[in-house]
């Protein structure tokens, strides 16, 4: 085990991802992620200077659509799938923080 990722780092990543783990789960995850990153050492070690990144396999640009309104979904159909609904809206527990 390389220990590339510590329990604290794993806990930080879990917070970003909105997941919760026990300490032992965090240790196991840290070890498993470290193993994957060890395997990725070949990529990490590569000299890629002068090579542009490819985010996408197809070199497409400027795919757009015309600004024409089409029917939206029926609200009942949308809200029927929601866990909690009030006044035609999605209901959630109180939101403590402000949006960033």
């Amino acid at each position, binding site marked *: 085990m390389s220990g590339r990722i510590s329990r604290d780092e794993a806990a930080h990543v879990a917070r*970003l991802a*909105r997941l919760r783990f026990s300490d032992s789960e965090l240790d196991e995850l840290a070890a498993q992620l470290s193993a994957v990153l060890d395997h990725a050492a070949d990529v990490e070690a590569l000299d890629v200077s002068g090579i542009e990144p490819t*985010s*996408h396999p*197809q070199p*497409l*640009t*400027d*795919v*757009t*659509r*015309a*600004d*024409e*309104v*089409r029917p*939206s*979904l029926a*609200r009942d159909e*949308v*809200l029927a799938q929601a866990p909690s609904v*009030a*006044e*035609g*809206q*999605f*209901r*959630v*527990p*109180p*939101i*403590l*923080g*402000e*949006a*960033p």
Partner: protein
Amino acid sequence: MSGAATGRETALDDGWELVVGLEVHVELSTATKLFCACANRFGDEPNTNVCPVCLGLPGSLPVVNAAAVDFAMRLGRALGCEVRPAVFARKNYFYPDMPKDYQISQYDQPTNIDGRLKLPDGHVVGIERAHIEEDTGKTTHVGGGGRIHDADYALVDYNRAGVPLVEIVSRPDIRTAEQARAFVRELRAILLSIGVSDARMEEGSMRVDANVSVRPTGSDELRTRCEIKNLSSLRSLGRAITFEARRHVDLWSSGERPRQETRHWDEAGGRTTPGRSKEDAEDYRYFQDPDLVPLAPSAETVAAIDAALPPLPAARRAELVAAGAGAVPASDAALLVERDQDGLVLAAISAGADPGLTVTRVANDLAVEDWSKVTPDGLASLVALEASGRVTATQAKQILADIVESGETPEAISERRGFQAMAGHDLAVTVDQVIASNPDEWRRFCSGDDADRKKLAGFFIGQVMRATKGRADGAAVNRLLQQLTHGPTSD
């Protein structure tokens, strides 16, 4: 703390300089949202303009609205920006009003960079970037008096989710609160001129955040800044900047330092309150959105946008002032351009109308939503009637209101309403009657100083207007009053 709740925009203490940059989010007035074909419409029933895409349903994919890109590039060119190849990125953070829990925005490759906005006073504010992104939904906090922290629960409406925004980021080139307001006013005028947004701060289609810091006058350092949010009017913007700057000066002066944070403007309390600290800032994990492909506007596309760009507010104001040959004040010119009435006024002037009177009538009496029935010729005729004394100012206003409603000619309205300015003997008789009914006022008018005379002249003109149901010409009444005390005046 000094400066609190005064609402005044006092200058900073000697030795300190204000450094402000603005971030302005503007909703584009496209027919549909940025990535789906739902209507982009304000005020509809909650969650009626939603689809798999703008709800972020599993499996849905975004497709860029061509008009939104066009609008954004138009704005970029109007701000003198370089229009660049651009890439959509995902800004990852969790919030209930964001359907996908990431916002599609432009990060390191925005559509517009490096522009400038010249304020009417000549001060130039740099534009760092103007990028395209999607709006979030709208959250309502229920219970607890509507305050976010005490709420019982929250409701989310996604009608606004996915509405196209352009975020305009200025450089920290603003030095006074008045400049900040002028920046927003001018930006708004540009947005209206080029027709890409209705830019209503009160409806939230234009939202302003201010990054405020201070520094010793003459230095070029950039000190800790605070980002002030929730500025929903120009008045709030000015007050908040002034308050925040004084807060910073007080902190620095007492050996402390401001904390880098987001702050909120409390309009009722007249102060900013601390929000989220920037030290525990989110890690947004930006990366190129793999569901979208880059934008690569050609030189021809940009040239076509330039060619189609309508005259900008500064040029329109200048044209109006020039056409008025000294009779059109800059403030009226700005107002008319803002209301998009400069074209009407210019056309009326070239149809022969008196520039000063035309501008006065339109600026003062045409502040209505729909003035489409007012033609240049109609306006010119109306101004001619008034200028020649055939109708009074009060009657002219009534006629203008009638034109807005019916589109009739001023002559027809004047005829129908029986308008003609009361003058000569009839007017003199009425003035005499009014003087006779108000002997105390008349005595004070005759013996008072200039200020008294002016005030009481207003009183008598008002009485005459009432007696004649507005058919008297105020200027003529004034002349009669002066004659009755001093004999004929020279004009």
